[in-house]
């Protein structure tokens, strides 16, 4: 039995302890904003916050989540999340949209740690998030705009 919180709510899981957090979130908790893209931590579509840090949920076995706080795109909140959402809307960042939950989770985590990220900071934090539609230019600008909103 694994106990953890998901978007602030206490949860338990008593299935196969090898089950990746991604599938616990999706198949058992029915929160589908967190996506499957590769299953091997190459694309970042499954990014969640685990105890405040971005984590690829597709390779994180639920057994490692014991006692942790998990936040998904459905539960993300705070000044950084608000600014990121606003910036995403203003620039119409998504195309197909499938990777965008992961992009947003990585972007919010970046801004929480680095309120005024440089291009290199953005590359470092976001290079693990693949977007096959290649919305990268707008992702980059939206992160900068969000940083600007928080500043001013």
């Amino acid at each position, binding site marked *: 039995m694994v106990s953890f919180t998901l978007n602030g709510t206490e949860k338990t899981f008593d299935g196969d302890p*090898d089950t990746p957090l991604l599938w616990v979130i999706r198949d058992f908790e029915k929160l589908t904003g967190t996506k499957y893209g590769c299953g*091997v931590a190459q694309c970042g579509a499954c990014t969640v916050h685990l105890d405040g840090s971005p984590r690829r949920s597709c390779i994180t076995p639920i057994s490692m989540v014991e006692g942790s706080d998990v936040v998904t795109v459905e539960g993300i909140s705070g000044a950084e999340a608000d600014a990121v959402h606003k910036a995403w809307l203003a620039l*119409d960042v*998504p*195309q*197909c949209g499938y*990777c965008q939950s992961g992009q947003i989770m990585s972007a919010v985590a970046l801004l929480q740690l680095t309120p005024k990220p440089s291009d290199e900071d953005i590359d470092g934090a976001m290079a693990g998030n693949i977007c096959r539609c290649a919305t990268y230019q707008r992702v980059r600008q939206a992160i900068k705009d969000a940083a600007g909103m928080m500043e001013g």
Partner: protein
Amino acid sequence: MTFQMITTTRRGFLQGAGLVIGIAVAPKAFAASVAQGVPAGGGSGLPQMNAFVKVGTDDTVTILSKHIEFGQGPFTGLATLVAEELDADWNQMRAVHSPADDKVYANLMFGMQGTGGSTAIANSYEQYRTAGATARAMLVAAAAEEWGVPAAEITVEKGRIRHAASGKESGFGALADKAAQQTPPTDPKLKDPKDFVLIGKDLPKLDTAEKSNGKAIYTLDVLADDMLFAVVAHADHFGATVKSFDDGEARKVQGVVDVKQVPQGVAVYADNTFAALKGRAALTVEWDLSKAETRSSSELEADFAKMVAEKGIDAVNKGDVGKAFSEPGVQSLEAEIVFPFLAHAPMEPLDAAFVMGDDGVLDVYTGAQFPGGDHMAAAQVLGLDASKVRLNTQLAGGSFGRRAQFGSPYMQEAAEVYKASGGKRPLKHMWTREDDIRGGFYRPMYLHRMKGAIDADGKVVAWDQTIVGQSIMGKASTELDDSSVEGAHTLPYAIGNLRVISHNVALTIPPLWWRSVGHTHTGFAVETFVDELLQKVGKDPVEGRLAMLTNEPRHTGTLKRVAEMADWGSAVPVGRERGVAVVKSFGTYVSQIVEVSRDEGGFPRVHKVWCAVDCGQPINPNVIAAQMEGGVGYGLGAVLFDEVTLGEGGKIVQSNFHDYRSIRINEMPHVEVAVIASTEKPTGVGEPGVPPIGPATANAWRRLTGTPVRRLPIVPGGVS
């Protein structure tokens, strides 16, 4: 009650099919077991299989998109067409997928429902505007009746209907029911483009919010109570079949429910996705390779090279190419360019969900690019009458051509899996990334042999090109497939002697169109080779092209524009070079200039891309720019990194994003886009951003390093 545009075969005033205003009854309740998956008011939630636009009593205007939304913006674009003629306020517009119907929702360029070939706006431009204009006329008629004033005195602006003299005013919703009682106009007048207020503006996209908060529902997100999750073990050779399998260990996996052989492999059914994956990994399958492709990519390439010398099909043969090369004083240039197999690798791998509806009709959910084909495939495999299957198109996580397949082989697999399950529980079938990369339906491998002749004055006088590869359209070896030669046999450059020969190769590896189809390779071959010819005679890449584009004003327009944007001819930073390319595809003209340096690994680093696009009347410049940016990223990633190869014995080498690379944010150049103003009929933008980026990059690279690119990807093995 609300009214909606409906089509019947009884009354005709639009495209012969007949679009009339009908009364919608309250949507039928959905199967109670569906926990999520259908957007409110969308898909089969609408009871009548024939609406294009629905004005709700709540003042919302919902357009039913006959085209799937997987990133290229048809929801926004089609809604713009309706809103323009309806004089709606943009904030009241909504969009959902239409039901599957090859007649009512036919792509007017295909004759069946389908999204592809960058046609969504082009084929819908008048149809959706007419739907909007019809709805407007009905609302105005209703207002005239309600207020007892002449319809001619009524104006509509931003969703408000007004009669100035009496001071009467209303929104759409309050008049929707009365509007439904009006006689539809037989020939609603469309606006003169000079009167457009929404078309041509950067309206915000309709689907951004739900795609930014995790609420957008894709096929993978369709859930039902008691759902089964299934994956299939596939062969790692094309054409292989199951010889035998041992499922003893798989059945021991916690959550695995069943294992069944299906024509495509071995299906594992489980109570959750992970159990299905774990069960699949525990299977032992022996494959029968007797009919499989066992040649490696290099063996295939050698076979392709042999075919160049054989007799092919003339796609074009004008002037006298042979004679031109033997004229005195003529110098020639030759090149052979090899293109690899490419997987589309959309972010959401292929998937489908099956849920029996409470009305006894099976609901099938999938990212349907050819909804009618997917519908028929599911019905046929399941042995059901078509009326007993409802195909619900979902948002899809990209496609790039992958979801458009004749005969719907993916849906056949999913339906076989559902059929073999016995259909007692709702079922989701998904491909993993490995299934996707190794699943075939690739942009085929091609080999181009190029030969050009330049006369004593430095003028290109002959062009001789031979293209060897699979026919995407499945043509016989004696029959020309235009999609193999498009852009080459229609060479825009004025060259008197032009010959393009095509060879169709038959392979067991299934081919498919990949974002921009033939232009993925012909654009590269033509634009790199013409650049080399120009360099050989010391001509400027832009000026030299312009001189040969004697009868091509729109190529010329974008090329001149992009040269202005990049300040072509100005000093380039030390260590960098620039390259240019212009390609017309799907009726849209795109010119790009790139600035490239050599990175630490010795490979190209693209810093900046300038892009000018002429797609006729722009509907939404912001969406057009996004498609150019995306096309650049998608195309650049492929030419730099991507290939699917067959190793010794024909085994597929790549499997996931670690060895089938995608471009990442740190590799993405900044793209600056100019949309050419035009009142020509609109053409598409989903694909045309792709073809120029490869040759423009290769041209810059050649000018920087002296080395022409003769083989893609540029980065061997895709890993830099």
